[in-house]
């Protein structure tokens, strides 16, 4: 059976000051993904290897890691597509728990701070919503919260700013573009969410395993909405006039 060389980042922060890449040799069969190889090491070589996985079908987003330096889902990365010398490392934007496992729970605080769905006052019950109005929001609802976008984003990864990160702009956009929602979260994103830190370098969009066009369909539209509110004098004037009329 063919074998590949699999380097896995190993570190138990309670014991090791620095991590190291440990090389394993793993037999591969057709169609095998990186997660299979990592699990093979766990089941046969070192049962204490920490790796997080759950659905193994690219639907839960648990097994996010950096494979040969690129943020990817381990369960979705086929070994035959990336060659036989593979290195797997944990996501660098998050605090390491052990080996390949990081702590993504600080993100829930951001999620809590984001204004919740707030249906329009005069909506009928049950809602009447046209199919043409659900498409945009539904794209963002494909998000599996793997947090790879937060990992690859340089604002989160290399600079410690107040930026909420791509995941939560996608979340905000999914609510903002909900046809029944009455809020405009671009205000939150600009004032508290730090959307100005995004410099549209599109790494998040490039690596999104759910193929959400994060930058083009969520971040840029939210930036434009924020511009309407805070930067565009004409729009601000129009808004004020409309308010006066009401």
């Amino acid at each position, binding site marked *: 059976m063919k074998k590949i060389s699999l380097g896995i980042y190993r570190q138990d922060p309670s014991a090791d000051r620095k991590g190291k890449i440990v090389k394993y040799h793993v037999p591969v069969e057709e169609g095998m993904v990186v997660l299979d190889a990592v699990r093979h090491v766990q089941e046969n070589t070192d049962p204490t290897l920490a790796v997080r996985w759950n659905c193994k079908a690219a639907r839960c987003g648990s097994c996010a890691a950096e494979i040969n330096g690129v943020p990817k889902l381990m369960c979705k990365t086929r070994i035959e597509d990336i060659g036989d010398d593979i290195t797997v490392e944990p996501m660098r934007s998050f605090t390491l728990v052990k080996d390949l496992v990081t702590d993504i729970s600080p993100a829930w605080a951001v999620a809590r701070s984001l204004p919740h769905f707030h249906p329009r006052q005069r909506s009928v019950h049950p809602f009447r919503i046209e199919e*043409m109005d659900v498409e945009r929001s539904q794209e963002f609802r494909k998000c599996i919260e793997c947090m790879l976008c937060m990992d*690859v984003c340089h604002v989160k990864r290399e600079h410690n700013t107040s930026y909420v990160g791509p995941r939560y702009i996608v979340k905000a956009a999914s609510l903002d573009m909900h046809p029944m929602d009455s809020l405009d979260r671009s205000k939150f994103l600009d004032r508290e969410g730090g959307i100005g830190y995004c410099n549209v370098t599109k790494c998040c969009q490039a690596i999104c395993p759910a193929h959400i066009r994060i930058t083009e369909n969520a971040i840029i539209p939210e930036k*434009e*909405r924020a511009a309407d509110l805070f930067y565009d004098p004409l729009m601000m004037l129009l808004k004020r006039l409309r308010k006066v009329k009401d």
Partner: protein
Amino acid sequence: MTAAKRRIVPEELSNPSWRVLSFIFLLLAAFVALLLFPVPEFKGYIDPFYSPLILLLPIPAMLRLTCYTFRRGYNRHVFQHPQACEAANRNDDRSRDYTGETTPLMKIENLHRYFVYGSLLILPFFFYDLFVSLTYGGGFILRAGSILMIVETALVTLYLLSCNSIRSLIGGRNDCFSCMHAPRARKGVYDLQSFFNSHHDNLAWLSLIFVVAVDLYIRALMAGWPIDFTLFKIVGI
């Protein structure tokens, strides 16, 4: 990062690397060269940089500088925030200060739409220039240079109309199409624009290349290069 918030000019400009300096130098050099060696018109070809007036050049220049596509370009390759997505080639690190588009200077990116409006006013001149080149000599004439200009005009038009700010204006800012007048038509226009918008990056770069190509082509003609063959001609009516 409270200290960073007080910046007016981002760190990458106040403490520029050779990449930033050469980028600024190139921009200035190009502008000076355009001023010093003008070619407003030659044999029915009007140079896009001078149409209608070289003094208006800052508008399309700012259009492109504040365009989301070119922002991505210089943020990656000039400012290196980050240069690439994969871990090995990011060339971004924690020690560098980062303010993104939050400083007063960079907040100008939010006014992209005004440069779009300005450029929309200039756009008809591209069509006028094309018309002039096709009717050079009184009849209808199709020369190699005109073909270049047809492609250039088409690309510039598509680039401008596929803009993200326009996308927001014609429907992106609305949450509910069916709540407005003529929802199907509006959604149709929005979807069509979105289709071109998804190719905005390619259009941005190609249109820039073709504008420069037309300019260089005209300069080459002036230098006497025998490249402007005629494909088709109807003598003046």
